[in-house]
């Protein structure tokens, strides 16, 4: 049995949280991720599978539901509790029946949640996404600090940034710097 010490994307033992100007920047490490990409000709089956897993219709283009978001045409990311569903990709792969390709994504990404008012003021310094028009349920992929990141708007005062794990430090620095600059 291996005895390995789990580290967060920022390299610490505990998730980091920062607060500035009424906005919290919180590292999220308790979510398992897996992508579901439809096979050619099985697009409807793949969407039905996402609906079955999440209990709600598969998100439309650039939209997110409570536990899934749209990544690209006929492709979705599923979110689940790491505590109870660490083997999310295996669970999904057992159900796809050839309709989709499932890929384990948990350790490919880092996630930072921003909570507070005036998030649009922060993100207008960081990316092209027009947060002022977001009302909740949007899922946009855009570049932040030259990194391809997903922006998931849970509600106008709560946005998740999901970016490449290997650049977690740079992404965190960019987010915190923008918060200090804008707020």
């Amino acid at each position, binding site marked *: 049995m291996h005895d390995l010490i789990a580290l967060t994307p920022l390299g610490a033992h505990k998730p980091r949280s920062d607060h500035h100007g009424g906005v919290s920047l919180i590292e999220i490490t308790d979510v398992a991720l897996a992508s579901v990409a439809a096979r*050619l000709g099985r697009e409807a089956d793949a969407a039905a599978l996402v609906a079955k897993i999440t209990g709600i219709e598969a998100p439309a*283009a*650039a939209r997110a539901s409570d536990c899934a978001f*749209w*990544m*690209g*045409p006929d492709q979705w990311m599923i979110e689940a509790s790491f505590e109870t569903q660490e083997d999310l990709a295996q669970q999904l792969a057992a159900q796809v029946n050839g309709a989709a390709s499932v890929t384990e994504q948990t350790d490919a990404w880092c996630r930072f949640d921003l909570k507070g008012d005036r998030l649009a003021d922060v993100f207008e310094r960081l990316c*092209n996404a027009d947060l002022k028009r977001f009302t909740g349920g949007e899922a*946009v*992929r*855009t*570049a932040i600090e030259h990194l*391809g990141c997903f922006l998931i708007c849970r509600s106008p005062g709560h946005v998740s940034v999901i970016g490449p794990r290997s650049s977690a430090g740079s992404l965190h620095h960019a987010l915190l710097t923008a918060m200090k600059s804008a707020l």
Partner: protein
Amino acid sequence: MIINHPLLGPRDAAEFVYKGDAALIHRPDGMAPDALESFIEYGYLRDNPAGEHRELWFHEQGDRSWLVVSRNTLTHEITSVELARDVARREGRSK
């Protein structure tokens, strides 16, 4: 320049990468007797029109879809944007 993505709406051209003439969708048959000539043409020879041009763009910093964009190379006016997979299927390239 703004590209009006068919699924996502207007997006800044900086999010995209130019991938060449849309004729690249029509990759020649590598097993045909004239494969060498057709691949030299496919790989190296391009029209360079001053005016309407159909081209491939990749939404790299976005949803990573490939688009066929009709653009005027003199004015940068974009007249149509479609998902490349829809174009390819319509032209019989992808089953």
